[in-house]
């Protein structure tokens, strides 16, 4: 143990390492939160394989693919913004964050059209068309709405995080030697990406 640990004890000392550790622990809770949904998905898909297969035909793979690419790319720009910050290139870093936010909006707009199309087709919770379908399809669409809905909610929170970061950069609270909040927001954003990496094949690619 070195003397810096003693410094940790000093009041008001900054511990970036500790902040990241706390953020990771928080990400685990998010992971398990979605994990609960994945367990439900796994069980119902196991019980109703054919019906999940049928229901998945209703989803548009292209939209899903575009959203996957959007999230992967935004994940990259979020990671790059840290590099830019570390190099002291604050303007570039801000630009990259804005690009990330842009992709997030693209994702949400896509999602909005996707959901509206479903709802126009009469597929939404409690609708007559949906209730007429077999059990497995009702469950599939129930899970589809809940899981992509919760995911989109996380996208929104991620955007709020980044807007907050931009504000703090402007205020000078985040700079090239102090950027753990940017790192943590990026971590959160990558988690959103990670979840989607699984959601995409599980909902869109059952052919």
């Amino acid at each position, binding site marked *: 143990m070195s003397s810096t640990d003693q410094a940790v004890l000093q009041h008001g000392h900054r511990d970036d390492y500790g902040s990241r550790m706390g953020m990771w622990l928080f990400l685990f809770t998010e992971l398990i939160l979605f994990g609960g949904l994945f367990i439900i998905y796994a069980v119902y898909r196991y019980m109703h394989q054919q019906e999940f297969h049928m229901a998945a035909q209703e989803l548009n793979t292209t939209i899903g693919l575009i959203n996957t690419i959007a999230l992967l790319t935004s994940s990259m720009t979020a990671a790059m913004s840290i590099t830019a910050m570390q190099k002291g290139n604050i303007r570039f870093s801000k630009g990259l964050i804005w690009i990330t936010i842009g992709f997030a909006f693209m994702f949400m707009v896509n999602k909005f059209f996707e959901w509206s199309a479903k709802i126009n087709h009469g597929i939404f919770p409690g609708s007559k068309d949906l209730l007429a379908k077999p059990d497995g399809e009702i*469950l599939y669409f129930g899970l589809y709405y809940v899981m992509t809905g919760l995911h989109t909610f996380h996208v929104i929170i991620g955007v709020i995080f980044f807007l907050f970061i931009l504000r703090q950069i402007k205020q000078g609270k985040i700079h090239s030697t102090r950027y753990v909040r940017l790192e943590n927001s990026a971590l959160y954003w990558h988690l959103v990406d990670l979840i989607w990496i699984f959601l995409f094949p599980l909902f869109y690619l059952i052919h």
Partner: protein
Amino acid sequence: MAKTAMPEEKVEPSYLEVSTNKHKKGILSWILSVDHKRIGILYLFSMMAFFTVAVIFGFLIRLELIAPGRTIIDAQTYNQLFTLHGIIMIFLFIIPGLPAVFGNFFLPIMIGAKDVIFPRLNLMSWYMFVFGGLFAVASMLLPGGSADTGWMFYVPYSVRTNTNVLPALIAAFILGFSSILTGLNFITTIHRMRHPDMSWFKMPLFVWSLYATAWIQVLATPIIGITLALVGIERLLGVGIFDPALGGDPVLYQHLFWIYSHPAVYIMILPAMGVVSEIIPVFSRRSIFGYKFIAFSSLAIAFFGSLVWAHHMFTAGMSDTAQFVFSFITYVVSIPSAIKVFNWLSTMYKGSIKLDPPFLYVMSFIVQFSIGGFTGLMLGALSLNIHLQDTSFVVAHFHYVMFGGTGFGIFAAMHYWLPKMFGRMYNLKVATWAWGIVTVGYNMLYMPMFIMGYLGMPRRYFDYLPQFQPYHVASTIGSWILIIGLIIMFTNLWIGMRKGPKTSMNPWGGETLEWKIQTPPILENFHEVPDIHAGPYDYSKYEAKKETTK
């Protein structure tokens, strides 16, 4: 007898006089303070308020059951009362009782830190706790009344009943996240804020138990969060997830519910075991027996505890494989608990024991927790479980572990640490009497439930067959004795806290760090951290000779 005179003059104003914020006095200096000790105190009082409410509910439930048929309340009210009793006791008393109150107050001190690593997050957890709690209680005032589902919210009843289930679900959700944030804070604090000399195996066992608990809080609680959220969504929007009418599987709900709620039992009991491991060496003036075994058994309990959830579902009609596996692991998970009990007993062996109130509560803990454990073995046996499941035998077993165990652990912690927290001592004689009354009343309340449970008295029954009445009467009288004991105990603690004689730095002769600093502690706990090299349970100054057998 505790030294009641003040041996050293007070050098500095304590945390009770100095807050972390600009408010010098008044409520704002408390509810806006990020000092871990003040937050601990906030938790203490809010928790006690909720506890009082839940005890009153419990009292009413018992009173109703003194005779078959309607006695004082109708069936609907009864159902709502036992639901709220469960929700409040579990989410607002037992779970936060030790970690959030005494963990917050003493964890940083015990590892030689000035605060937890995220003080503001800590305060936010408390706000979530209060907010969630008020949600649960306030739902009683809404038209339709509070939830009547039982604290397990079993689907599809919880989706269909007309009472206000949603506020209760939201309350449990918020409280879950409050608990997660506390756990996250503790893990990071233990990793990052330990004093350089405080190596892992010099940590007090209470800290070890909190560490194990915190991991369960972080990794299991989200499951209940999402599950209850889904029930809420299902109620609100009619999304098909669990409701069998929409193709859902109610047994899957039970799986998810117990994936959290079984480990939650260990969130509740582990810190109490930590308290016991603290108190026994102090009052026996002996180093704890098998430090590493107790420390690792906490981690083992945390791990195995997450593998056994489905033993709550043996009558649900699971596959035989699942029945076999979950029953078997249930027996494995009992081993670490047994190890702890034997190590505690061995710590008393050749000690120098003083029967002060904290130790008395620990003795009750050991006996009652053992009874809870043994009846747990009965419930783990498959064929027997089929008969006992959902009877008052389970209710008694659960209360023996959670109240006879954790509840008494909380009482022990109060008698042990409150003098340190407030700098004043309660009346030891009254406390001893209160202990006797509480223990007698407690056992009289729950022991009859084992018998009538075996005879076939189902749980959550508003009315019952006449042959069960003698047991119910005995149980209800027990509840009166228990409540009298509780009143005496808490009044004594309250008076002691306000007006009792001032205590010294170390009234019990403990060796962990909190006993080596000023009473009550100063704002940032230490100017200089006391010497840690000796380890947490070093009583060599009293001891005769060393007997290290390997």
